[in-house]
């Protein structure tokens, strides 16, 4: 730490070694039990780079002093991607938050908050094609690092499909990545490089129309055609977040359909307005989330098996994302339920939604990517113990998964 204290002030403007700050930056949205907390190590310091040069300096220092780096956006992921497992430098990207609109796309730095970006784009007649359901807080770099689906994914797919290119920094400098090569960075939690900025595809800012339909899950599957966004919420979750007391499908259109006779526009607008507010479910009881991705073919069967869970479903171009909300009734008991949710999904051809700190053992990441990681980060300094390699907590989860 002494070397860092000596060196950081020469290359980075904003940094902090304060012990309280180090505690705060060791955690993210993930709930960790007091027992598991013993495996969390506080970072040595936090840096908030304001430009590429500062990020490069930090990487150089990391390599020379052999101190790991944990990149951080708004820390709104529940997969522990920003949780610190080693004494490290936390690189908080929230001060790299400029963006520029250019030729129908936008180049946004890593720390730009999605909803802020959307509001500014709307003023210029544009809109994001996709954005996460945590958009009021989460950052561009954060979502890219986690990967996944969000609002608009029914029409436009996951975040990866909506990136023209990204610029990443690693120990060799800054590189621009696009097309197929995005797979080496999107969803890898910064284990192969730090996302500096992204050029994002946009859509024209057309007024969206929202409709709700009270229907069964099977019926919902047949109603999503032509929509920009579609999500389904069962009665249990609706009750928890104050959005009705029936199983309900939200359909959002860029062009409203001609036959609206069986659609409820008022309820549709209400659910749309609450699209970021899933955490309302935590008003009356502490909760944890569990998520799984299912192919369309088996989504219905999985849904019927999960009838006891409070569930939200997001329909996408190529799969169905299930999010289970579990009231916390005994930490380990609830975690076991969350694990069961994923195990059942796997039985139906599904998989865990993301990796982060919790599920690197799920082998979502292929061998090719693991090889790439070794090549760009031979000393394993970039977010160690995440996405491409196990850690003590993921090993415990693995054990839990073995419980019948």
């Amino acid at each position, binding site marked *: 730490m002494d070397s860092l204290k000596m060196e950081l002030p020469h290359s980075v403007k*904003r940094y*902090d070694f*304060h*012990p*309280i*700050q180090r*505690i*705060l*930056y060791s*955690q*993210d*949205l993930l709930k960790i039990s007091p027992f598991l907390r013993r495996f969390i190590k506080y970072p040595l310091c*936090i840096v*908030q780079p304001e430009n590429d040069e500062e990020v490069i300096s930090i990487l150089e220092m990391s390599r020379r002093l052999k101190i790991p780096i944990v990149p951080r956006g*708004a*820390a*709104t992921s529940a997969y522990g991607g920003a949780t610190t497992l080693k004494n490290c430098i936390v690189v908080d990207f*929230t*001060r790299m938050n400029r963006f520029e609109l250019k030729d129908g796309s936008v180049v946004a730095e890593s720390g730009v*908050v999605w909803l802020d970006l959307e509001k500014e784009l709307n003023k210029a007649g544009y809109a994001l094609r996709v954005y996460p359901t*945590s958009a*009021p*807080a*989460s950052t561009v770099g954060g979502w890219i690092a986690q990967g996944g689906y969000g609002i608009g994914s029914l029409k436009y797919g996951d975040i990866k499909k909506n990136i023209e290119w990204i610029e990443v920094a690693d120990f060799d400098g800054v590189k621009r990545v696009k097309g197929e090569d995005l797979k080496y960075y999107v969803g890898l939690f910064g284990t192969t490089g730090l996302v500096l900025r992204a050029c994002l595809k946009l859509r024209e800012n057309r007024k969206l129309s929202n409709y709700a339909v009270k229907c069964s899950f099977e019926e919902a599957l047949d109603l999503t055609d032509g929509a920009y966004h579609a999500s389904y919420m069962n009665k249990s979750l609706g009750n928890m977040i104050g959005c009705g007391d029936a199983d309900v499908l939200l359909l959002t259109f860029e062009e409203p359909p001609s036959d609206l006779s069986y659609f409820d526009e008022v309820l549709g607008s209400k659910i749309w307005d609450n699209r*970021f*507010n*899933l*955490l*309302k479910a*935590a*008003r009356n009881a*502490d909760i944890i989330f569990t998520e799984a991705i299912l192919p369309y073919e088996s989504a219905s069967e999985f849904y019927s098996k999960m009838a006891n869970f409070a569930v939200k479903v997001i329909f996408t171009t190529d799969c169905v994302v299930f999010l289970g909300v579990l009231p916390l009734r005994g930490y380990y008991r609830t975690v076991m339920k969350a694990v069961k949710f994923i195990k059942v999904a796997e039985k139906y051809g599904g998989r865990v939604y993301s990796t982060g700190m919790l599920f690197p053992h799920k082998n979502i990441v292929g061998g090719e990517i693991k090889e790439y990681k070794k090549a760009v980060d031979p000393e394993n300094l970039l977010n160690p113990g995440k996405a491409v390699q196990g850690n003590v907590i993921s090993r415990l989860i693995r054990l839990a998964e073995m419980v019948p």
Partner: protein
Amino acid sequence: MNIREVAAKCSKCGYCNVCPTYRIEGWESVSPRGKMQIALAFLNGDIKIDAKTVKDIFKCSVCGLCEEVCPVDLPLISFWEELRYELTKRGYAPLSVHKKLKEITYRHFNPYSGEQEKRDEWVDFEIKPAKTLYFAGCTASFKLQNLAKATANALSKLGIEFTVAGRNEYCCGSPFLRTGQRDIFEKLFEKNFRYWEKAGIERIITSCPGCYRTLSLDYPKIAEEKGYEFNIEVVHTVSILEREGKFEKIEKVKGTYHDPCHLGRHMGMYDEPRNVIRKLGIDFVEMERVREHSLCCGAGGGLRSQFKEISFEIGRQRVLEAMETGAEYLITCCPFCEYHLSKSAEKLGNKIKVVDLVEIAEKLISL
């Protein structure tokens, strides 16, 4: 309120990072989410805090925007006040300037060092006894006397019989309640309440949202704690203007409105001032962040007194937002907002004039 329980319910979603102070400072220790985590660990005895951390906790105008956006519906305004009180009880607070203001107020009964004998200096009419009291508040009494005069004129024009307490009016205590200094708040409550009881006051009108919130929400609570009966109706001038005012119209004046936090988020009064502005014929244009999502002026919660740079940066942002509308007037309903935004506008070359709605409305009341 059990602040430990509230802190434990924080989901760490980070939606509260809209906090104007966090947006400037940028560190988790200044974000509402971070402060909740600090509070929880501190109250659990897991961490020790130092002067820097206490300062970070106080970097907050208690504007309530965090409470507005919190999906878990945590009562954050009360939480910050309780946390500050807890820190004071444990000897970590008050901060230096807040403490100094308390000492000044112990001597002068206002935080501006104004002489108590001169509290009614603005009064240019004969004070008669009445059951309705106009409570001018410290800022209007000592800093913005035109507002006090305008309010009194407006009430007279509307035919409302009222009195003023003059040198028997004391600071309502809001700055101290917000900064965790309940001892002096209780003393100020006692002094004001005793006088009102003696004078037979049944209704209090105030044009200061800080006083309005304190008198209508906090005084009844403390009265109950002390076993007093608090049967006084408290109203803000703007609701009287909305209800009873008939106005001549002004033309070709473009104005925008700044929601004071204590009137808006704290008390839920958003429509009344807008209705009055429309009644006046002002070409009204809204800023980007309004009503529940309004940006604070930056002055409240002891932020201006203790952390001037942050406070003026927020003020600058708000004035710039008002200027973007193209309005000539930035209208508000709070002397403290007016005072702070005027100073902020001054730093930006006075390109927009900051005024209190009562001052405009008073001149246009139809007799």
